[in-house]
């Protein structure tokens, strides 16, 4: 028996190259090797010609243009209805609807009304209303509380509430040092959503404001060292240096009223007791009590009180 007959597969292929395959490996592996070769011989993906590409793009753009045109048309219709809706009283509009048989007109009318209401809702949100989303098919609501300080939006907090016989918080991302339970329980029992949210928002806003002030102090006044602060930002101890008297002052700001971003107490510590008695530093104390700390420090720097 010669070797050719023992091997099931010929060792040479049509193109003359030997197949680098051990014949002993079996039928299946041979088949898969053949498949790999077949695949490698397949034509490379042909490049789409530039013209074709551009044509496709042109077509897509035409479709988009048509769609936009249609949208504009629809919008115009809605606008027309809106002005009509605003000009005439509601009763007249209803009458109009009854008389008009045109179904399309009615639909446009309704769309106009929905858009109007949506805009009202948006306006409500802009002027400080709460952003509320219904969840779990009306069994709960999700409230978004956004905080801001001096016109800058800061953190946004969310709360999911169960609307049962009483309002109950089911989930929230309010930091743990804000006493949620204490703030919300009494109002929650009476299902008073505003009474529930308003104090909380005040607290959150004040907290965000104090934290922003601290951030600004660190950023704007590198010469002032922050010695001590806490998570709630209810205490702030800063080290001030006086350029003229060449001493250092320890200034402690207490924010015991957690609903405000201004301190309730300012205390200075210095070895030079006379300095603290001076009218200038009495003024500074007043300044710190009445203006946000980063601004007060800026003013004090301008007056050459601190370095």
């Amino acid at each position: 028996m010669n070797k050719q007959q023992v091997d099931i597969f010929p060792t040479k292929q049509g193109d003359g190259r030997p197949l680098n395959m051990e014949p002993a490996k079996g039928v299946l592996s041979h088949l898969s090797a053949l498949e790999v070769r077949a695949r490698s011989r397949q034509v490379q993906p042909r490049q789409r010609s530039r013209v074709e590409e551009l044509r496709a793009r042109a077509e897509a753009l035409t479709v988009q243009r048509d769609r936009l045109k249609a949208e504009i048309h629809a919008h115009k219709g809605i606008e027309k209805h809106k002005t009509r809706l605003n000009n005439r009283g509601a009763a007249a509009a209803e009458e109009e609807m009854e008389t008009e048989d045109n179904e399309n007109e009615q639909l446009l009318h309704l769309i106009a009304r929905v858009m109007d209401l949506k805009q009202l809702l948006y306006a409500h949100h802009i002027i400080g209303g709460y952003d509320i989303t219904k969840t779990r098919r009306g069994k709960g609501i999700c409230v978004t509380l956004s905080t801001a300080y001096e016109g800058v939006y800061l953190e946004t907090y969310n709360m999911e509430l169960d609307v049962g016989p009483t309002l109950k918080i089911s989930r929230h991302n309010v930091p743990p040092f804000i006493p949620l339970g204490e703030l919300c329980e009494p109002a929650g029992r009476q299902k008073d959503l505003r009474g529930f949210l308003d104090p909380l928002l005040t607290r959150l806003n004040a907290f965000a404001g104090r934290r922003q002030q601290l951030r600004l102090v660190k950023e704007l006044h590198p010469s002032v060292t922050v010695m001590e602060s806490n998570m709630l930002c209810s205490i702030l101890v800063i080290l001030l240096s006086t350029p003229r008297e060449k001493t250092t002052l320890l200034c402690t700001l207490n924010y015991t009223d957690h609903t405000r971003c201004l301190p309730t107490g300012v205390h200075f510590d210095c070895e030079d007791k006379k300095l603290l008695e001076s009218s200038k530093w009495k003024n500074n104390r007043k300044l710190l009590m009445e203006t946000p700390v980063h601004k007060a420090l800026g003013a004090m720097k301008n007056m050459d009180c601190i370095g």
Partner: protein
Amino acid sequence: MEDQMKSLLRQLVRRIPIRFLKVTLEKWGRLTVAQQQNIDFTQTKWALADELIAYSEENRLTLRHITELEMIYVIDNPNQGMWHAFQLVDPESDAPAVELMQFKEQFKSHLNELVRNVSVKMKKNTDEAVWIRIAWGDSCSRPNNMRPTYVVHYLQTPYVFVTRLTSKQKTLLSQAMIIATRHQAIKDAHLSGRNFSAIRDLLMQEYEQVFPAKYPSALVERNQIAALPNIEREQAEAEVNRLQMACEAFGGGKLPQLQSVVYKLETKFKDPSNQTFTEREKPFNCVVTFTSKNLLESLRHCASSGIASTPITPLLSSIPRRGRNYFVITDKVSGPSSQINPTV
């Protein structure tokens, strides 16, 4: 005292891997620059400890300085041993006003009143956390610095994290803690694990939570794969929904690396094919433990890929929502017996 210092330093050198040792010593700052440069980190740990002991004697360092070194190392590498979370409850009216100096004083004096021989060291970390190291002793023995308890507390928050605490010490610590923080009681938060930051982030809510909103969230965009034009997902909407649900339950982005959850079942056995067990009056007790490298992420994947059905059962969503990983499940006493609610 001298001996304790030496053995503590020796233990520390043994514990700290060589690659951290240099940085930790630098942070400690009790050795002169020349001394630090002289240290040969390639020698054996035993020889290294000898060298450090020699330097410490030269610089007249005391036990307190060595405990300082230990604290620096532990604060940077807290994931050693089991951490347990506790929750302070019933705050008094002046609780929010507690500040660090007052807390320090009160805690130390109250603990000293309760146990005579105890050594307490506190350090405030950059992230406002107060780290407390307690070496316990009793009336006749000096504080044992070799097995200290570590306590982490963020002032004004109700959470306390503790590691290496025996039950006897627990009562003492609890008392000192509630007095110093102006609370009335402390309770077990049923959350524990080896990864300290995971436990902290879970309770302090320092991870991204996802809430339902009117406006499309970034979630959808973030998860959209750059799709090939010829491939289309038929049920893409359902998929997005599932993802939203999963993220609402477990959070978005990177999740705290919680590694295990334990459910203790004390429910009646129900299986129609097994009469003997089903008819038993007593509940069938068993413990189910889930473990994973990152359990919350695994669960989120299960829910978003549809392996676990949505809406997600409260048994699973309670883990992040209530911040705990130990649950005892009992049958509801009233109402249909099939309902199971996770209760303490």
